[in-house]
């Protein structure tokens, strides 16, 4: 079975300082990994995805994530936080099953607060 663990339910940073949102996964197969962002009462927006190409993935709005197989991690980072980054972030893993369906598993989310 696959699972995703987001280690922090809340992260608070000052504007202009680095952001680190942690994600660990477990999977018996080679997973695809994603980070989504959700602003209040809005749908989910894809930030970036890893699908077995380069392990360092760059996404929108200056975010990036590094896939580390040895650590089973896919942490999301940004060098300098902006007020507009305040939102909830979800780490997601997908793996194919025998029926061709890809099971999608979400982490419980990390709420990012940016302090002016």
């Amino acid at each position, binding site marked *: 079975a696959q699972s995703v663990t987001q280690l922090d339910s809340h992260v608070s940073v000052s504007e202009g300082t680095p952001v680190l949102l942690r994600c660990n996964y477990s999977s018996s197969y080679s997973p695809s990994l994603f980070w989504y962002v959700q602003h209040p009462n809005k749908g989910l927006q894809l930030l970036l995805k890893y699908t077995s190409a380069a392990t360092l993935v760059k996404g929108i709005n200056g975010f990036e994530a590094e896939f580390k197989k040895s650590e089973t991690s896919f942490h999301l980072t940004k060098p300098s936080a902006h007020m507009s980054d305040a939102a909830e972030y979800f780490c997601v893993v997908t793996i194919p099953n025998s029926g061709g369906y890809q099971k*999608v598993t979400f982490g419980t989310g990390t709420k990012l607060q940016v302090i002016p």
Partner: protein
Amino acid sequence: SQTIHQWPATLVQPVGSPLSLECTVEGTSNPNLYWYRQAAGRGLQLLFYSVGIGQISSEVPQNLSASRPQDRQFILSSKKLLLSDSGFYLCAWRDTGDTEAFFGQGTRLTVV
């Protein structure tokens, strides 16, 4: 290009009333379709997924049901809402064989 429409955006319903949330996808055919719920303080929970017309799989037992009457239409329903059904519901689609999922804007359901 592909788009996904989900409505309504917000809904307030009394306990015991029925529910129907609709989701449609444009610009693709035979997509995999999903309904997720996000309860306060919790992550996204997969409720139902569908790989084709009339094919519905439920991930968790609950007071809700889903139907797929057309290839690009996915409906979430309930005959009698419970207070615990309150939450943020998201519809999503994904092309078969692809890994990325695309989400609707969500429906904020409040059961009173």
